[in-house]
Each structure stands twice: as structure tokens, then as C-alpha cells.
């Protein structure tokens, strides 16, 4: 690890100011950033910890919308009783990861195999930053890429509460990240299906499945659909064809378990 300066502000405004300097990097739970720094693959001059900011903590629910602070850990979301989102959070990594990692960190990093992006996109979540509100459909812009500007901080995330939802994760055997993960959320105005782990473009909505499920919300509705292997990730753990298969299989299972 290279040397760096460490700051731990207590307000979002202080954090934004601290991040204004060159080569400053926000630090959530550090579950991706710190291993990268230890391998000397990242060398921020300054780390700005977001874990001491009260505005970013806590969760609340209006009944229609669940609001989760950007600094809330996976463990706290898992314990929150928020249905499929809590189940998803409880299956991220291991206890160490869940006790340090945060939802804001996960969404800001947008790892193509991360779980939260699927939940946010399928739920039609709103990512609230220090500067603005960003709809999930506009937020995820590609592999490790988001609509966030430099020094923009995720303060909280609003999840509309669906009628029913389910997340199916098929684990990559080594990392136990999602080899493919599918989040299905059924709302009064329609079904949303988001897929993580599969595409070279990162998390995406499987709109054909949404259309089919809007007509008939059952796993059988997917029978006639085929998932193209084009632009699917290929690695040691799965070919594009295998991932395409999993997208369909897991979507069917998510619908069945909704």
C-alpha cells in the first residue's frame, strides 16, 4: 500500500469539500478499495471516510418507500426486514464484508458482479446524492461506471416497495460474487427485471422478460424467450452461453419465488 492522507468528516458538506482536492477518494466500507490499495493497484493521495457522517446513516420506511442511508452496512440492511433487499444484503460476501461494506459504496463502485445494482435497478430506486436525485435507470452507465460526478456522494437510496420481489443469485464459485443475479420486482404498474453479473455492460433490465411478465406473471411466461449470448461476460467461471442460460433460469426462479 502506498501512503495516503486520511480524513473522517462528520457532515456531507465537509466530505464534499475534502473530496475536492486532487486524487482524493471517498472510502465507504473499503471492501473493494482497500484490497486494491494493498495490491498497490490504486494509490489515492487522500482517503475521505464516509462512515462518520450521521446524515448517511439509518434507514426508514414510509410503507411505500424504504430509504437507506448511503453509509448503512449490508449487515444492517440484512437485519432491517426489507424483504428481498434484506435477503440480498444478507447474502453478500461474508460477515466481515457485511459488517463493513455499505450500500453507497457498492452502488458507487458498480461492480458488474455486485448485488445491489440489480436491486436498485429492478426496484426503480432513486439515488440521492449531495447534489441531486438520480433515477436508477439513469444511474448505471456501464462497467464500474455511474452517473456520479467527481466528489459526488450517495447520501441515501429510496427503494419503492413492490407488491412482491425476489432476488436469485448464482454464485461464482471462487469469489461468491454473483456469476449471474436476477432481481424481479412486481409493482402495481408493471414488472421490472434487472440482471447483474452477466453483461459486459454491467447491470441491465431484461425488457423482453418484463413485457412477457406484465402479460402473465408466471415463470411459464418466459418459455418462449431466448437470451442472446452476445455481450455476455466470458471468464473462467462461465461462457457467454452459460450466463445467458442462467439469466433465463434465474429469472424464472425469481418469478416463481416472488
Amino acid at each position, binding site marked *: 500500500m502506498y501512503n495516503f492522507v486520511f480524513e473522517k468528516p462528520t457532515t456531507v458538506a465537509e466530505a464534499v469539500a475534502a473530496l475536492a482536492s486532487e486524487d482524493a477518494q471517498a472510502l465507504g466500507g473499503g471492501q473493494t478499495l482497500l484490497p486494491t490499495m494493498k*495490491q*498497490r493497484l490504486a494509490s489515492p493521495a487522500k482517503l475521505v471516510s464516509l462512515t462518520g457522517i450521521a446524515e448517511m446513516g439509518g434507514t426508514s420506511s414510509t410503507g411505500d418507500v424504504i430509504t437507506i442511508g448511503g453509509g448503512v452496512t449490508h449487515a444492517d440492511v440484512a437485519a432491517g426486514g426489507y424483504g428481498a433487499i434484506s435477503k440480498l444484503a444478507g447474502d453478500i460476501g461474508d460477515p466481515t464484508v457485511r459488517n463493513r461494506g455499505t450500500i453507497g459504496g457498492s452502488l458507487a463502485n458498480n461492480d458488474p458482479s455486485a448485488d445491489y445494482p440489480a436491486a436498485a435497478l429492478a426496484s426503480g430506486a432513486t439515488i440521492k446524492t449531495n447534489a441531486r436525485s438520480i433515477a436508477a435507470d439513469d444511474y448505471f452507465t456501464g462497467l464500474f461506471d455511474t452517473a456520479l460526478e467527481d466528489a459526488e456522494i450517495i447520501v441515501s437510496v429510496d427503494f419503492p416497495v413492490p407488491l412482491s420481489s425476489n432476488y436469485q443469485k*448464482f454464485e461464482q*464459485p*471462487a*469469489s461468491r*460474487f454473483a*456469476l449471474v443475479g436476477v432481481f424481479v420486482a412486481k409493482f402495481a404498474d408493471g414488472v421490472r427485471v434487472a440482471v447483474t453479473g452477466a453483461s459486459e455492460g454491467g447491470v441491465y433490465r431484461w425488457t423482453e422478460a418484463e413485457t412477457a411478465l406484465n402479460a402473465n406473471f408466471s415463470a411459464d411466461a418466459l418459455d418462449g424467450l431466448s437470451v442472446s449470448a452476445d455481450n455476455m461476460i466470458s*471468464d*473462467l*467461471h*462461465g*461462457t457467454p*452461453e*452459460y450466463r445467458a*442460460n*442462467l439469466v433465463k*433460469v434465474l429469472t424464472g426462479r425469481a418469478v416463481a419465488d416472488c
Partner: protein
Amino acid sequence: MPKDNGIGASPKRREDVRFLTGRGRYVDDIKLQNQCFAVFARSQVAHGIIKSIDTSEAEGMPGVLAVFTGEDFTEVGGNPAGWLIHSRDGEPMKEPKRPVLAHGKVRHVGDAYAAVIAETYEQAVEAAEAIDADIDEQDAIVDMAAALANSDNLVHDEIETNQCFDWGWIEDNRAATDEAIKNAPHVTTLELINNRLIPNAMEPRASTADYNPGTGHYTLYTTSQNPHLTRLLISAFVMGIPENKLTIIAPDVGGGFGSKIFHYGEEALVLAASKKLGRPVRWTASRWESFLTDAHGRDHRTTIELATDKEGNFLAFRTSTLANVGAYLSNFSTVTPTILHGTVIAGNYTVPLTYVNVKAVFTNTAPVDAYRGAGRPEATFSVERVIDKCARELGIDPIEIRRKNFIKKEQFPFLTAAGLEYDSGDYHALMDKLEEMADFDGFEARKAESAKRGLLRGLGINTYVEACGLAPSNLAGILGSRVGLYESATVRVNATGNISVMTGSHSHGQGHETVFPQIVADMLGMSADDIDIVHGDTSKIPFGMGTYGSRSMAVGGSAIVRATEKIIEKATKIAAHMMEAGDGDIEFNDGVFSVVGTDKTVTFPEVAFKAYIPHDYPIDKLEPGLEETAFYDPGNFTYPSGAYACEVEIDPDTGKVTICSFSAADDVGNVINPMIVEGQIQGGLGQGIGQALVENCVYDENGQLLSGSYMDYTMPRADDMPFFNVDQSCLTPCTHNPLGAKGCGEAGAIGSPPTVINAVVDALSHLGVTHVDMPASPARVWAAIQAAK
């Protein structure tokens, strides 16, 4: 006899108290005054010519004390292969030099070409990054067949080929085997891959050297399974440091699985650096260095043929294997794919003919060497997979075809077609036990129940026999070993009657500190609590050959028996003097010497005290003291065997394999500590299941390690494992060692991979699938299902 901790008892592992409370003392825990740190500069390319290495910037950086390159070691020797293998044409194998630091060329990603010594670890890391190496990258040689076909691109230019040897076993049987296969009514052929593995010991390799300029003595603390062998290699081959000036200490070592048998260049580097600087120099591998530079395991490509008659009687096995040895010959790399593989190719069977051909190939990958089982898992996988395929082709039950060909109990000792004489075994009894354990009759019902849940259930059967307890030195020498393979022990009875046992075996997880005292306790009629084991320090123990090849109990334990017998013999004479009787009138039972036919007795501690306070002592006939050393050289290998069964469920939509049950009946000979044996068997099963289902070392075509971290190299975890149903009750004692012990360390890792794959194939056979390579990952199993459609 102290039943609570003698032979056959299961006292808890005494070493676990310190391991589980953080009181272990591993190499990295040893901090020496004035120590400094070594960090290596390692190649990022698989194959390249070193044009120049500019160390000037690094040398000027803060805290830097010295920088070494391959140029500094041109005068020292190479790290040798421990076995000389001859090719079929009689030519000796090719032995390119393995230098301390790469010189002239780098030959695999991670190959160290320079080292920095600095005051702090961080300073050494910074300086190592500042070394400017001009390396002209060459095309990487990764694929074994391509390596053999292409003589223009060589891993080692000086040997003019990428082939290390072309070995036949038994060459005199080749023509007859060919003939038998040509004329056989049925021949089953199978091409398979024994997947390459990365050992992943929990503790990474570490070495700290401490040269004392005042005495000229070197001490090397290092993660070794066999400190004397390391000392011998450093002294006799690599550095020429006299053995009396070199102490090797392998303290607590956190697992080895074979990878810490070998001497590595880092050990030589820290010794040289400590000498140069007159300060202790330490190095601990990062996990990424472990992935890139620990000797890997397996990596065979094999075609096996099994010839039978129509009834399934085996007529001949013939195999052809390409074995990857990586970029350099590691110490046991030449014996592993040959002697340890070819000699057990007859398995548990009376098959009259076998022939094994192995071509060992240099590639631009990390060295490949012995890994838990070492050669025998590869042989067992080939044999047992082809038997399963054959049974299916002939429509014979997989248990029946094995039983039909088993060596029968009354046939032992049995000389196999592959040239070994198995001393004892009862394979039918093991299979009987397995049938009892695994409830084969209920399988169809369980399969139907799985099918209701949309899952495909398969049952895999397997048997194995291994040759371990390495090894008779004379035979090993004939077969090419450059070392002896005895073991040593010193039993030192202290004046007050407690005992220190110095053993040449090394414990790095096996539990020797618990189990070896049980032997001595049993023989001397005392509590094991009064007996301690000393190991891992060449200045304290007699010359030993260390721990590998399931040899610690069969060979090391036998040495302890022999030394303890000498203690009893001498103590009997002392006791006779004390009781004014003749030696022949003394009986020794449960720690008490008595004169036959009288009520005169003395206890063992009283005799010990007398030996060290020799007043009124037969000093003209007997030396004082009570300490004896024995070197035990076994008369044969030992031959553990077993019968395994496994049931799997496969999700056809995802390809995921789940192990539902695993039953293992093992004959490991006489058992000293049943709990430790069960633990060893379970650990081996876990490692074998890891190979079968999840573990895979993969290099890309450029020689980059794709599975270079735990993000991509899958370690088996607890939730990958079933509850194991294990049994060691069907035992046949080894006939040639005093304990009757055969060995248990490698058994599970040898027997389980084919069991799992046989089960996977059984689950998919109705689709037409005849083989799935390891690891049977979800993606691979799903692809096999799709391909069969």
C-alpha cells in the same frame, strides 16, 4: 496399559491448545534483533530474455542495504531434482539448472530475477519496484503438446528440447501389453485431464536467515516439511555451506500438502544476504507470491485404455501421459509423475499386464511437484474412471466389475503387473463394508425422489490402493532416488523418568505431537503426558527425511518403536543389576520391571534415575544414561486401500453439483489414534472433493495465471462438503513394520476425485455423457449436458 492415551486411544491434539489460542510460533512470528527485509522483483511475463537489469536507482533508495540479481549467484549450484529418471532409450532426463535468481532468462510469471534487502519491508517493496529490468518477451510455451511439437521455442535453450524425459513402465511389458490390447475382445479408451492445482497452504512460505559473523554459523528459519533435506540440498548442491555451519529450523508450519517439501531459491537468497550484511534477513511470501511460485500439483493429460474380455475380466491397462513439470525441475518433480504414478497403475486388481508412458514437459509455468497423493491420485483417477466407463459399456455393475478383478485376500503378498509387491489388504471386505455404509439398495428410491425435485442423482463407486510410507532406500535408489528414505528417532529418557523424543518427521498439521507419544507411552507403560516430541530443528534432532508420502507413522513411528525397544533393552539390564538378577530373568510390563517368579520390582522412573546417577551401577558393562537413537529403513512401501461411494445431485438447469453423501471405508493398517486418522481421512476427502468440483489452476496462452487469487481460484469450503461417513474398521496390518501402520494422510485425496466424477457421470449417463473433466464446475457440467443434447 494407559488406555486413555496409549495406542488406540484418541486423546485430543495437544498442539491445538497453542494453535487455537494464538500461541503458535511460525516463521513470521520470529523477530530477530537488527533484522532487515527481503523483497523479490518477479517477472510479469512468462518467458523473456533478460537484456539488462539496472539496479542503480533501487540501490540509492532510502533504507536499501543490498540488491541481488542472478549475476550474484553464477558461482553457486543449481537446486537439483531429487530423482534421476531415465528415458525409454536409456538416456538420463534433461536437467537444466535451476538458479537462485533467474539468470539470462525468466521462465514463468513470478520467476524472481532480483531481490532487494532494506531496513523495512515497505522500503524493500518500493525499491524492488524501482528495479529497471529490460526483458525481451518471448512467446510463452504453455500447452504441453505444442511444447513437444515446437523445438524452435524452448524453455531451456541449452537442452534443445522441451521434453524432460520419455519414460516407460515397465518397458519390458510394452510389447505384451500392446499385443493384449490389440487382441482383446473389448477395449475402453478414455482421454482425461488431471487438473492442475495450487497448494494453498494456510501459512505462506517464509524464510529468515541469521548469519553470525562471530561463529560463521548460519541459522535458517523456514517453512519446511523436512528441514534436514533442505539443509542437505543447500549444503551439498546449492551453496556449499558445510552442514555443521548450517542449522535449519522449521518451527510451527501451517500446512504444506507437499509444497513445503522442496527447497526454494528464496531460502538461498536470504542466507546469502544475511552473510553479506551480517544481519538477519527475512522474507514472507505474499499470497500472490504463493499462487505464482509455490510448486503446483497434478497437471496430467492422459489417454488410458483398458482391455477386457466380454465378462469384464481385466486383460491390460495402457496409459499415455503428458506431465507438466513447469519451468524448472522442483525436487520431487521427476519422481511424482513416474515412480509414484506408474507403479500403482494396476490398482487393486490382478490385471496381468500394465504399461505406462509418461512424457514430462517443460513449460513457462510455475514448477509442478508433489501435492497430497503425488502421482497416485493421477493413477487412481485414470484407472478408476476407465473402469467405470468400461463397466457401462459392458453393462456390468461397477461394483461387480471391480470385485471380479480384485486381488483376493488370500493372494497377498501379491506382485502386481506394475512391479510392486503389495503386502496385505482385503478389498472385498472393504467393498462389503461400503455396501453396508452406503445403502446402495436405497439408491433408486433416492434417485426418484431427487427427480421429483427436478434434480439428477448419481452414484459413484471407487476403490483405490496407494503405495506410501516412502520408502525402502535401496529400492528407491534403484528407481533413481538421490537420497535415502529412512527415518530417525532419538528417545531421551530424562533423569526423573519423563521423555523427550526427537523425530526426523515434521508435523505441520498432522498431529505428531499427540500421536507419537502414544506409541512410547504404550511401550513403556507410562502416561503420554510425560512424553514430548521435538521436531523441526536440525540442531536438536537426528538426521531425518521429513514428512510426505504418508510416511510419518509407518516410517517415523517405526523409528520411534526401534529406539524405544533399545531403551527397554538397556533399562532391563539396569533393572537386572538393581534387583541382583540375570538379564534373562527380567520381565517388563506396564512400566514395571520384575524378576520372574519373585515379588521384586523396580519401576521405569527408578531405572531412569539410576541410569543418570550411576552409583552402584554396572559401569564396567554398561554406559550411564538412557538415550537411544534408531534409523528405520522400511522393507517395502505400505499399501493403504479403500472403497468409496458418493451420491450427487445435479441441477440440470445450472449444472451445479451437490454432494449428498460420501462414504469411505479405508484400510490404513493399524490405527494409533482413531480421531486423528479420521481427521486425516476427512481432510483428504475434502481436498479431493476440491479437486473434483472446484479447484483449477489456469494459465492463459501468454502464460499469465488467470486463477491467481481467491477471486478466481476456488478453495473448497465447509458448505461444499457433505457429512462424511467414514470407517477404518476393515484393517489389515502392514506386515513389515513394527506398528502394522500403513498411512492415512493422502488416502482421501487419492480416492475421492474419481468417486465424485463417477457419480457425476452416472447422473448424466442417460443423456449420453461419458466423461466430465475436473473440476466439474457448474458451467462445465451444464456444457456437457448441452453437448449431449
